[in-house]
């Protein structure tokens, strides 16, 4: 069992959890994730580690309640317990001195991209983080991004904070006005695809953090397979970061919809698989 030390909402439907997971905290590097099982009957879901304190043995997760399991996890109170936290999993993000890096986070993808942005800033890069969100209330980690020394650009769909529109607007402007040596994006699949298209013509090296459905997270099941440059890759052991210009986003989007009907039914009945 893993103790939840703190649970707090950070945006509508988005919750930050601090969990005692000493093994993960000790070995985690930015870009890596954990697999969490809320209780003994639960499914295994992947979540990025946003921050870790190796000395205290704590990790931070930020989870958006999109379905049954993420909702259950969001509801575990401070002082509660979760059955399993295994990790760190996946390859760490490449952290090098690239020059000027634009990091794009869409929605809860900001939580996925943030640790990499901070590490890149720490490695001597200039980092501009573009955060996309529905409204001002959905913007997460703004203070942390600024505190890490990164430049912050916010884009909201309704214009309630920052510029109005999608993240690709400010990204295009940035590329036009400034030298961008590398782009990193995490968020909904359509957003990552749009970022990839934005940087393709200028051939700016672009990495995306993919979010396929996973079971074990250790290379055993092949459920997380994605096509990258026509080759089959397992996101849990070969990724989750891949070259955005080579990723088959359509295939990923289709595979992530595999269990949609089950999930809808489960959510409606507040039971994992009430459809059966």
């Amino acid at each position, binding site marked *: 069992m893993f103790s939840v030390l703190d649970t707090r909402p950070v945006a509508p439907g988005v919750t930050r959890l601090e969990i005692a997971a000493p093994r993960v905290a000790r070995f985690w590097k930015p870009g890596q994730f954990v697999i969490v099982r809320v209780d003994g*009957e639960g*499914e295994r879901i992947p979540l990025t580690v946003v921050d870790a304190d190796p000395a205290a043995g704590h990790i931070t997760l930020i989870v958006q309640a999109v379905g049954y399991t993420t909702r259950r996890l969001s509801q575990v109170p401070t002082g509660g317990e979760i059955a*399993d936290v295994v990790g760190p999993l996946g390859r760490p993000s490449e952290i090098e001195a690239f020059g000027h890096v634009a990091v794009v986070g869409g929605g809860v993808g900001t939580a996925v991209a943030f640790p990499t942005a901070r590490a890149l800033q720490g490695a001597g890069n200039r980092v501009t983080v573009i955060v996309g969100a529905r409204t001002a209330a959905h913007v997460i980690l703004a203070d942390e991004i600024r505190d890490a020394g990164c430049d912050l650009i916010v884009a909201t769909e309704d214009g309630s904070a920052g510029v109005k529109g999608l993240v690709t607007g400010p990204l295009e402007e940035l590329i036009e006005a400034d030298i961008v040596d590398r782009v990193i994006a995490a968020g909904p699949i359509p957003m990552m695809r749009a970022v990839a298209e934005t940087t393709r013509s200028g051939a700016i090296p672009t990495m995306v953090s993919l979010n396929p459905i996973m079971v074990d997270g250790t290379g055993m099941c092949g459920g997380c397979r994605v096509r990258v440059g026509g080759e089959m890759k397992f996101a849990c*052991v070969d990724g989750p970061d891949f070259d955005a210009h080579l990723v088959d986003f359509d295939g990923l989007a*289709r595979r992530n919809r595999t269990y949609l009907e089950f999930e809808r039914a489960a959510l409606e009945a507040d039971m994992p698989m009430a459809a059966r």
Partner: protein
Amino acid sequence: MKELSTRERMQIPRQAMPVRDPAERRRDFEEVALGLTPELAEREAMRCILCKRPPCIEGCPVRVRIDQFIPLVASGDLAGAARMLAEDNALPAVCGRVCPQETQCEELCVLGRKGLPVAIGALERYVADWAREHGAGRQAPTAPTGHRIAVVGAGPAGLTCASDLARLGHEVTIFEALHEPGGVLAYGIPRFRLPRDIVGAEIRALTDLGVEIVTDAVIGMAESIDDLLAGGYDAVFVGVGAGLPRFLDVPGEDLVGVYSANEFLTRVNLMKAHQAGAATPVIDLDGARVAVFGGGNTAVDAARTAVRLGAAEVAMLYRRTRAEMPARAEEVEHALEEGVLLTEQVAPVELTGTDGRLEGVRLLRMEQGEPDESGRRRPVEIPGSEFDLPIDLAVVAIGNAPNPILRRTTADLEHTKWGTLVADPDTGETRKPGVWAGGDIVTGGATVILAMGAGRRAAQAIHRHLTAKNDLEAG
């Protein structure tokens, strides 16, 4: 009980294990084979002619004292038989169910030369089940040696290595990546062949011996092997199995509805997708048409699982002929009884679908060509023989490659070009000091009992190494 002559013993026919009716068992996940009754077991045990130099033992990788435990069954001393079995085999109820006995111990049984061998596996299962139900055959820990050993992977290889080392008085910690120990026994082999409470009980016997099992620990991602050696472990045994599933390498493999056997079986076995309300589903198989690619135990297990999940039609599609299938003959037989169809000599060329969902497979007929390295005749395509089969689910069961995690994270572990670990077949010693290895990670996909044999030999080698070290330090 009167003493039987060899002649009389040899006249007793082999006793068949009762199995459930196919029509009934094909819709549930309860165990198929029911085990011997006391009468059947005693009668079967009396068939053993108690060879002076029993060849059967040579066929058992963990060297179960077959010639000694079987007479104890014949004489009704089940407690004695259980004690002996527990000393020789850390997972007797598992082996009694899933060992390919016909190519191990039973293949060498002298009775097999003229008739049918003694049903050693069935008797082993009988004793182990009796022991579990009667709380017999428990092992007691011995005086601690002060040595600490880390075992990586809680599959049959790791569990056996841990059990042997613990019984020699060493302090053993097993690190397991998943949330449950057992390896393939937990996520691969279906419960209708290997009920999970039986695996659980045999693993409990291990923790009763003092073995600590740490789940949710992926060595190489968290601690490295070097961290373990530096952190107070005197030796490390690596039994991480063969994980990474192979795919067909044909177009359409990313369609929704195409699973690796590992994923399909893990969702059902480990994550309980067969239960109403389970959180980790497989796509709805009610009335579905299912194709399973492959001819091994894994393919058969996937096919039989699909039947039980309500599929209307399940076909195993195999490149060669039934005689060449690596799966155990008994399991193939059981599968066919349950309505699984076997289509021989076909190979997929493309998986097809619309809107990203699988709808069919295009197959090519094969014929037998020249023998290949394995001595089996190579399947050769018959040009122009393409035909289409409508399917809703495809399960790819064509084997696994070794898991890459340790290979990538431990620089000085030597690997073959196939990615398996290099280890001495007699001792499990690797080229890295302090590290032993065994099971599927060394041999590639093999069997439970071969993995256990490797775990046992490594335990002995580790013990010798640590004892020699003690002597050196003392002397």
